[in-house]
Each structure stands twice: as C-alpha cells, then as structure tokens.
C-alpha cells in the first residue's frame, strides 16, 4: 500500500509539473579566435604562464588606451550574417562600471544600447525532432575579464589577467527556449556554427564558449513572464541541460509551496548537483553604462558588410539540406557530414571529383574518419587528398578493384601518396586489380568447386548457406582481387548447368 501511495503522489506531482512551462533565454559568450586581444596587441593565446599575455592596456595601467581589433569586428559581422541578422552600420562601445579584482579598469568595455549585430535567428530541433526557430535579440562585442584563482595562495585570491581583453561575442537569445534540452540544443547549434564559420575554436574545456541562462517558469497558457533567475558561467552542453533542469524544478517547488522567486544570480555546482545563490559576488546592479570616450562610433559600410557576407561559407544547415536533396543521402549521414567545416569541405571535394556521393559519404564517415581519429588529425590535415581518394572510389565503383582492395590501397596511399597518373601501376604492383570473367575467373571458380565437392553437393541441394563459403574460398585464392559479385554469378550459372 505504501509504495502505491508514493507512486500516486509521484504521478500527481508530475501532472502538476505539466501545468508549468519554462521560459528560457541564453546569453552565450563566444571567445573569438583572433591572434591578439580585442583592444591591445598582446597575444590571445590560451595557456600562457600567469600574466605573461598582458600588456599595459590589459592591466589598465594609467595612460593606456584601447584600440579595437578589426578581426574581432569582422568575426562579429560574419556571425551576424550567418544568422541572417541585421548588422548595424553604427555601433557604440560603452563602459560597464563595476569593481571586481579580475576586472582591471574597474569597467568592462562592452556594447549596451547599440550592439554591432541586431535581430537574427537560429534553427534547432526540439525534443520531437521538429524544427524550431530561436530568435536572437542581438550580439555584441566586449572584452573578457581575467581569472580569479581562489585555492592557490592561502587567504588570497590570485589573479591571472591573461584572459583579460580576449574578444567576446555575447549572443543574446530571445526567451524562446522552453526546455533544458532545447537550451542545450541551442547552445550546441551556436557552438557548431561558431566553429564552422571559424570565429571560435569551440574548446569548451578551455572556456572558449560559456553561457548564462535566464530561467523563469509560468503556468501553461499564461502570457506574462514569471520572475527570472540567472545561472552564470556554464561551460558544457551537459551542464546547461542539468543546471536548467534543476532550476526549473526548484522554481516550481518554490512556487508550489506558495513561495516567490527572487531575481538573483545563481551558480551551478555540478559536484553537488544543485544551483545556488551567488550571494558573495556583491555585484552592483547600477553599472552606470555610458559611451566609452576613448572609442569613437564603430562605422561599417554596406560594402564592407556585403564583402564579409559574400565570403561566408555555405552553412551546415544549408549543406545538410543539399546532401539530402541533391545527393540523396540519409538525414543521419547528411548531418554527420555537415557539422565540421573541414569534413564537409573534404566530402564536397571528394564528391565533386568522384561523382559518387553515397560512396564518398560512406568513406568519409567511416574509413577516413576512423583513420584521422586514430592519428589525431583533422580533416584539413588528411594524409590523402580528396582527389586521390576519389580515384580510389572510382576504381571500386567500376570494378577495377574490390572494396577490400580499395581499403588496402587507401591505407597505402595514406602512407605514400601516389600521382594520379601512377595509380594503375600501383594497383598492379600490389596485385590488387580485380579478376573479372574474361580474366580467367571462371577457371578459378571451377577449380574451387572441384576442390570442394561436398559443399557443391549441398549447394545443389538448395543449401544457399555454403555459397558464402565458396565465394570466400575464391576470394582467398585471388587475394581479394576477385569481384565477389561476379564470383557469385559464375557459381549460380554453374549450378543451373548441373
């Protein structure tokens, strides 16, 4: 009885939760992959010893002045174009004033009222697999702060300001997200897109992308928003999902107990699996934003914007669609091939040279992927060029070599690449040329049948199982150069004769 009651309680709880709807907006901070910082010529490389990538500008020394990095601007515009956003021809840099030890100037240079990128959108797949558009309110350029290390020196917070001045693009979504899973999916989409268009290395472990989640809940059907909380600084897809899940549950619990949600900043603690209030970080809510007098308005011409737009690569979602419609690939394969820019580019070059989209897709997703994976290489570092691999695939397709020989040849070419004009010589040298009917394959088949009279008899009795064995024997004898399809045909013909 007791367990039944618990179950009932549980079910009614779930029903109650069904009555609530979560409203979520994400602010994703993307570290831009520039060589130097956003406002100084110090190196933007990750992992230097503490404070070795800082100059007087990053340290906010007296008299130091910021000068904006054009690459950061270009990358912001590139992102804006990729999400079909309005690019603002005039944008303004503001100072956001607050004191924190890892913020050297006592203000962060950011964009407040006039960001560089205006409204745009991104498409994600919701839990049911349906396409859903998430609006993007804006994206603006700003400088990253340094890092505070709290457990290094006794009683002290140690400051490493290397990260100070790393260019950030803060992408602010509309509150269009309705579940933790959608939020994670959206974060993933931004991650993939930013990597794809080359504005971020996407290394979450190094903090290259972080997000803040604004979460509120309301009764289903309600149109106004509930009070929200902000979960700061989440740096993995898994954590985004879990943190929001926990926060939604917490808020529902508070509201159902007749409590009130307090607008506050919270921290996700993956070890304790909870979100908690960040009381200690006494941040003021009066940031006294005002236009930075050291930086004049950022003005972009339509021509500059159009140039960046025209140089934008075809984007993952467009490629995915193209692979399905034009090449007839499965939706799974299409997605697999379009997430990574280098992989996708490799596949497209391979297909263009081979005219064999399906075979190309299989090879890129399996043989090439596992080889590169073993060697720890990216698709842009492949030891075999798309044009050479295309020649291999063409020869598999036209029967010059068998699929098995193709793999052997591929591995050989990865070690020692071949001139395209010498491919056929290499095939012959390695004895990989497939033996067809005209090449005495029939004689070999007959020989095998003669050597295995028992199996032949079984086959004649209709036991198709042994067919595989006999084909295998032929393959063995020919070192894999026989065309299994032809071998099969020859055997079938012989049986009919009997």
């Amino acid at each position, binding site marked *: 009885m007791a367990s039944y009651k618990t179950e009932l309680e549980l079910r009614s709880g779930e029903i109650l939760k069904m009555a609530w709807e979560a409203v979520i907006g994400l602010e994703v901070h993307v570290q831009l992959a520039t060589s130097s910082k956003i406002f100084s010529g110090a190196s933007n490389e990750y992992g230097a010893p503490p404070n070795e990538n800082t100059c*007087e500008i990053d*340290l*906010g*020394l*007296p*008299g*130091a*002045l*910021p*000068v*904006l990095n054009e690459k950061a601007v270009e990358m912001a515009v590139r992102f804006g174009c990729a999400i079909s956003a309005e690019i603002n021809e005039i944008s303004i840099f503001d*100072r956001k*004033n607050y*004191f924190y*030890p890892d913020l*050297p*100037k*006592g*203000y962060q240079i950011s964009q407040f009222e006039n960001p560089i990128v205006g409204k745009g959108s991104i498409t994600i797949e919701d839990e049911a697999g349906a396409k859903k558009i998430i609006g993007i309110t804006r994206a603006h350029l700003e400088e990253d702060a340094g890092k505070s290390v709290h457990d290094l020196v006794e009683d002290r*917070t140690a*400051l490493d*300001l290397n990260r100070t001045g790393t260019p950030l693009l803060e992408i602010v979504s509309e509150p269009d997200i309705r579940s933790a899973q959608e939020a994670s999916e959206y974060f993933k989409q931004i991650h993939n897109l930013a990597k794809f268009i080359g504005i971020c290395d996407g290394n979450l472990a190094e903090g290259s992308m972080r997000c803040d989640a604004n979460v509120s809940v309301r009764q289903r059907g309600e149109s106004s928003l509930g009070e929200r909380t902000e979960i700061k600084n989440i740096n993995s897809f898994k954590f985004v999902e879990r943190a929001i899940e926990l926060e939604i549950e917490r808020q529902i619990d508070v509201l159902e107990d007749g409590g009130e949600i307090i607008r506050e900043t919270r921290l996700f603690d993956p070890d304790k699996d909870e979100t908690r209030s960040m009381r200690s970080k*006494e941040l003021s809510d*009066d940031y*006294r*934003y*005002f236009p*930075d*007098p*050291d*930086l*004049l308005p950022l003005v972009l011409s339509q021509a500059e914007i159009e140039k960046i737009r025209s140089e934008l690569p075809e984007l993952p979602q467009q490629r995915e669609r193209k692979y399905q419609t034009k090449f007839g690939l499965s939706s799974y394969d299409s997605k697999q091939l379009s997430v990574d820019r280098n992989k996708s580019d490799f596949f497209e070059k391979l297909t263009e040279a081979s005219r064999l989209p399906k075979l190309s897709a299989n090879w890129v997703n399996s043989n090439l992927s596992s080889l590169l994976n073993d060697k720890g290489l990216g698709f842009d570092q492949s030891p075999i060029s798309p044009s050479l691999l295309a020649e291999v695939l063409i020869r598999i397709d036209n029967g010059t070599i068998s699929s098995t020989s193709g793999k052997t040849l591929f591995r050989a070419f990865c070690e020692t690449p071949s001139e395209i004009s010498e491919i056929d010589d290499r095939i012959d040298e390695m004895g990989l040329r497939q033996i067809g009917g005209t090449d005495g394959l029939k004689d070999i088949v007959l020989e095998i049948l003669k050597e295995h009279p028992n199996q032949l008899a079984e086959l004649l009795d209709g036991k198709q199982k042994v067919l595989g064995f006999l084909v295998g024997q032929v393959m063995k004898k020919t070192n894999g150069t026989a065309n299994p399809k032809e071998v099969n045909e020859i055997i079938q013909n012989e049986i009919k004769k009997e």
Partner: protein
Amino acid sequence: MTQTQYTIKALTEALSKGEVSSVELTREALKAARDDSNNCFISLSEEHALRQAQDADLQIKQKAGCFLTGIPMAHKDIFCTKHSTTTCGSKMLKNFAAPYDATVVKKLDDAGMVCIGKTNMDEFAMGSSNESSFFGVVHHPWDFDYVPGGSSGGSAVAVAKGYVPFATGTDTGGSIRQPSAFCGVTGLKPTYGSISRFGMIAFASSLDQAGPIGVSALDVAHLFAFMSGFDKRDSTSAKRQDNWVDSVKSEGFTAQHTPKKIGLPSGPILNMISYQKEFETARRQIESAGHSFIEVDLPNLEHSVPVYYVLASAEASTNLARYDGVRFGHRCSEPKSIEDLYKRSRGEGFGEEVKRRILTGTYTLSVGYFDDYYVKAQKIRRKIFDDFAATFSKVDAIMLPTTPDTAFKLGSLDDDPVSMYQQDLFTVPASLAGIPALSIPCGFHNDLPVGLQLIGPANSEKTILEIACEYQKNTSWHLTRPNSNYVLERF
C-alpha cells in the same frame, strides 16, 4: 645667470653656434630647479637629463639635431615616463614607476630634448589653482601668496621662473591656458586629437589634450609641431590633412602676415572680467597690426561650465576606477577583505577634490539621472560646438579673455568649489568644442599677469599662432619676468 628669459629660438641659435652646450644649459636648469622655492617640481632626474644632454651635444656637433635638440624641458607629472615616477600629483601614484613612455615623451626624446624632471600639478589634473596636489601647493612666480593656476601649475611656473624654456601641460577645461595666463607665459591647447593621449594619464578622455607651455608663440608653434602627429595607439588620434606641421619641423615656423577677421563675443560677457582695460589695449594693438574685429554671438557660452563639469566628472569617475590598489598604486595596510581593500586604498589614495568629482560623476551616471545630466550635457555640448562652427564661417579666429580675473590668493577659494569652477568660464568652451585655443600674456593687472585667448576652428593652430607671433613682435609681456622685472633683450 639664469636662462630665464631665453626663448628656445635664442637657445637653439646659441647651441648651434657653439656658444653654449646642452650639458651646460641642463646643469643650469637642474641647479635652478633644485633651488626652486615655488614647489614646481615633483621629481628631478639629474642623471637621465645629463645623459640626454650629452647625446644632444653629440647630435648638435654632427649637425644632426633639430630645432629642439639639446633644450632642457620638463614634463607635467601626468605623462608616463619609464625613467622616473609618474604621480599625477596624487598619493595614489606616489611610487608609481610606469613601465612605458607616453607618446609625447617619446616624441620629444626623439627630437633631442632634455627632460630635467616632472612638474607639480593638481591631483589627477583636477583643479584650477594647483592646491590639490598631494605634493603641496605651487606658488605664483610673481607673488608667493598667490596660486599659479592649474592644473598645469608646476609647468607654467617652471617656465615663468625661467628654469626651463618649455614644459608640457595638459588641458581638459583650461589647465594649460589658465595657469599660462596667471603666470605670464604662452600656452596652447591644440585641436582635440592632434597630440596623442597614449601614456598621458586620463582625466576626461573626450576633453583631455596635451600641449606646450613656453615663452613665445613662435616657440610654441615649433613645440606643437614636434608634439603632435598621428598615433596608432590612440583611437582618438587624428591624421592632419595639411603638411603645415611637417614644414614647421623641417624648415621652422615663420609667421606670415595676412589680415584676419577676429570675432569678439557681444553681450555682457566681457564686462565680467576685471582687466577690461588691459584686454581692450591688447585688442587695439592687434587691430592696429591690420586685423579687423567683428562682434559675434556665442549664445550657449554661459552654459559651458555646468556642461563641462557634468561631462568631465562623469568621465573621470570611471577613468579613475582603475586605481583600486590591486595591480599598482597605493594599497591600504592589511586589508580585511576585497571591499575593505578598495574602499580604504581609494579613500586614502585620493584627495578631497578628486573624491568630490568621482562622487559627482558617479551621481550623474547613475540610474535615473543619466539622461537628465550626462545626455543633456552632451546635447548642449553639440549646441556649443555648432555655435563655434557657425561663428567660424564668418571669422578666422575668436578672441576671449583667458580668465575672469588675475590669480587669486592661496586658500581663498578652498571652501567654494563652485566659485573655483567658474574660473574656467572662458576656457571650457574651446575644450568642449575640441578646437585650438592659445593663451598669451597681454599685460598686468594689480601687478599680476593676465592673458588673452585666441581660439580658432579645428586644426587652425597656424592661424592663431600667426596672430600671436605678430602681437608678440610688437609687445614684450611674454618676455617680462619676475625677480628682476625686466625685459630681456640679450637675444
């Protein structure tokens, strides 16, 4: 002998003829500075200066120098220098040794000038009397009981006393021109953006501009040419469209006489000054040199002071946020928490005037007040800017008094910040518009020097310097010096 009344022009000629060496001049300047009782200097750099002087003598011998090579000078202690402390007149930076040289410092080093030390100033350049310096008040060169003006007070006095023929200054709302007028020297606030702000400690970024304080307008023209120039390290540094500056650097400056049309504001504004007689005499002298005067209307001039204080305080309040006791500068002893560290370090490190401006700026930028104060001030700033633009379609330059009165007594405006701020009435308009303004001595009132201001449109330094050079050919106020009260005629 002191080198007091020598212009750079005279000294350069003496150096090139071999009548004197840079090392000799530098030793004299250093001695005078050491013996100074007006408190002009915050620090002296004897070794550094003598090394520079030796290099300069070599250059002069090889005829590789320029107009400024070998001339001793001093930097306002707001310019970062690697070789000494840079205090900005504040306890906060008492021991601050900048790891880099300001662009202006580099440029003058490259020109072969010899820096003997850093001059006293109002703390963070906030003041009109040089009384807010952590390193003590600076005394007026003519009367010890009077203020020299500020914030570049140390620089103006060092030139007026003849320790050096030139010192750098910075001007946010009059900090070059007002002390120049009070001390009887020539000071130029150039067009905003013409001299790099890199390495110059910021007070109010949209107003701050470095400039020269010298003996004559002719010297100042050369100094401006060598100090100015595009700097890629300053986002607000502007490229000049003409080649005037380059020609001054290579061939020197010769003032051409072309009759100019000069505007004089109509209305009650000129009745506000105490030295109307001296001002009118100067006007007539300029007129008799062939220039004409017409009345012009600058309707928003009277709003300049409030607009200036809103903008300057707001910008200062955030520019000074970096002095937090974390990476450099003063830190309080044994801070108990980060909050304690901030509050006590800043509380101890900043003086009263700086605190007053930081709090005023914090107030005007805070939620609910921003539009009423800051944005409103920016709008009136545009009106003032437009007033000038309209006026300069009719005249080549505008003449204004530099200050309402002569220097005042030390301590007399201590308890009255608003009256102190009103001292800037005639200087802040050009700062707000970002246009060049030159203060030149135009006589004495109650035995203290007074100055007049020539203001031109953006990048018209040549025009106003030409008018001033001509005036200084016909007058000798700029060569009149304390101590002996005589006009030097040796050179």
